[in-house]
């Protein structure tokens, strides 16, 4: 499978001197390979998150198209686009994204619990739970399994979001500044985890300012003023 953007542009209406249209992403084309780790970096406000949201099926471009193989994401209705998102994408959005009434374990299992079929095999459920524990282990928050997000640090919540994005073993992992509030050690752990995903046939797209992430990337792009420049 490949995910590609063809000449996508996103404009926002915004009060500004002169024109009131601001172009956040301008005529970007990008193909994520079936496998490998892709990195985008760039200044704040250069349009990175906007681009990723469009790739993730969360924000319709002003012009241009996003394809998953032959499927034009934004020609799908909400139901089918949502299904495509949950079946193929794992996303770690920028900022804190926790459900506060659920424990860490439940947060991680949520994508699985929410869309599971009714008469699901016990073995399958057990498998998901085991995988969730494994992910918590790998991200170093297995002690917090039964804790609620209200009692956790920013970096811990971030790692929980990473585990949640991985639980359904998506083909595409889209991570918007996944290491923003992590220390060096944890940054390394997370990047290793992403690399392992890439090595196992997944496609990983990371937005990051972190210089350490450069070393992990197979392909790197620079984003500047809405334009995507290969490096």
């Amino acid at each position: 499978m490949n995910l590609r953007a063809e000449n996508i542009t996103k404009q926002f209406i915004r009060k500004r001197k002169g024109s009131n249209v601001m172009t956040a992403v301008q005529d970007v084309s990008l193909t994520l390979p079936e496998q490998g780790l892709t990195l985008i970096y760039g200044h704040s406000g250069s349009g990175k998150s906007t681009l990723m949201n469009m790739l993730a099926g969360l924000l319709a471009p002003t012009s241009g198209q996003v394809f998953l193989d032959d499927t034009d994401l934004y020609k799908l209705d909400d139901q089918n686009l949502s299904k495509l998102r949950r079946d193929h994408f794992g996303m770690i959005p920028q900022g804190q994204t926790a459900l506060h009434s659920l424990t860490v374990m439940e947060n991680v299992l949520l994508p699985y619990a929410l869309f599971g079929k009714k008469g699901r095999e016990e073995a399958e459920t057990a498998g998901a739970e085991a995988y969730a524990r494994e992910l918590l282990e790998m991200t170093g928050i297995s002690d917090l399994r039964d804790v609620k997000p209200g009692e956790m640090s920013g970096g811990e919540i971030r790692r929980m979001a990473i585990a949640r994005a991985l639980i359904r073993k998506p083909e595409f992992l889209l991570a918007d500044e996944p290491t923003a509030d992590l220390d060096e050690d944890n940054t390394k752990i997370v990047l290793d985890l992403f690399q392992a995903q890439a090595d196992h046939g997944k496609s990983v797209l990371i937005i990051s300012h972190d210089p350490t992430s450069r070393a992990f990337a197979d392909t790197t792009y620079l984003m500047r003023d809405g334009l995507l420049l290969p490096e």
Partner: protein
Amino acid sequence: MFRSLPFRNISGKPGRTAGLLLLSGFLCFFILFGSLVIYGLRSGMASLEARLGADIMVVPYEAATKKDLDGMILQGNPGYFYMDRSVVDKVSSMEGVKQISEQFFLASASSNCCSLAVQLIGFDPKTDFTIQPWVEHTYRGELGYMEILVGSDLNAFAGDVLTFYGSDCRVAARLEKTGTYLDTAVYASEETIKTLITEAKEKKLFNFGDVDPDQIVSCVLVDVADGYSQEDVLNDIKIHVRRTQAVQTRNLISGVSGQLVGVSDVIGGLIVVIWFLALAILALVFAMIARERKKEFAVLRVIGASRGKLAAILLQEALIPGILGSLAGGILAVGLAGTFCQLIESTLGLPFLLPGIPGLLILVLAVTAVSVLTGALASALSAFRISRIDTALILRGEN
């Protein structure tokens, strides 16, 4: 794996859930209690209308002017008044009178069933056309000498023996509830009541002067023949039968009916106001909750929930406390209305009859449904609004 997300969100926020429970409970309680009061008054009045049965009542002049009649029939205050028996013949000879029947009233406290005085009503089984038709539901057969029928509010049952003015009367049957003065009354044949009057006189408990029971009646009930106007017959009686007051039962009731319409309009208006208020408050609460939880909803969208799924989760979160709260409020309303219906009756001074179990169930279900739907409607507004916003925009909004 773990209990459904709506459940977790509900139990995870006890304060918020308690608030929603209270709100919907309050809403359901008020609508149901109000509806029960309106219903009780309406059917009380309908029941009274049906039970009175006669077109015209002829009573002693003093009875009507002293408001004894109103007090007795509408509020159920025991009372008695008498006029000369000759009235019966005079009235029956009037043109347009189809059938008549006389009744005797007596009040007595000296009974072993009841703390308050009860109204004793004597009727002539041969001519009676108002009491027997509805008594037949519960009691068939002739009411023998010194046998009585008791209203449903009296603490006496078939086979019991009640004592009035020292005379024992056997209870033949207990009547079904009417919500009117008839519920606190005791019925007996003319002969029985005459005996009781005689007893009362002998014991000097009777302070209506020296009257001969055989020469008096308390009221004459008139059924007007088809083809005659009630007003004409009424006027004829007024002109020709002196020292009496003829009352059209329809008028007797219409005065109260007006009062009833007033009371139920006020309650109905209150219900509407409370409903709107609750809808507005609930909508506001849900909008606030939605704003506070925007980010959580965005997360659900990110992990692949469709708009429909998101709306379904929000609706469930609103419905569960809505249903529980409404049921609790509904049960409380029924309980209170049932416990205090006597008090409501005496406070409003109007006949009051609650529906039977099937009717009550239907009303409870209907009102609970309204209350639950109100909550659902209120939450649907914000569920719809939140599900329309682009997920990416929500995500940035609170970074």
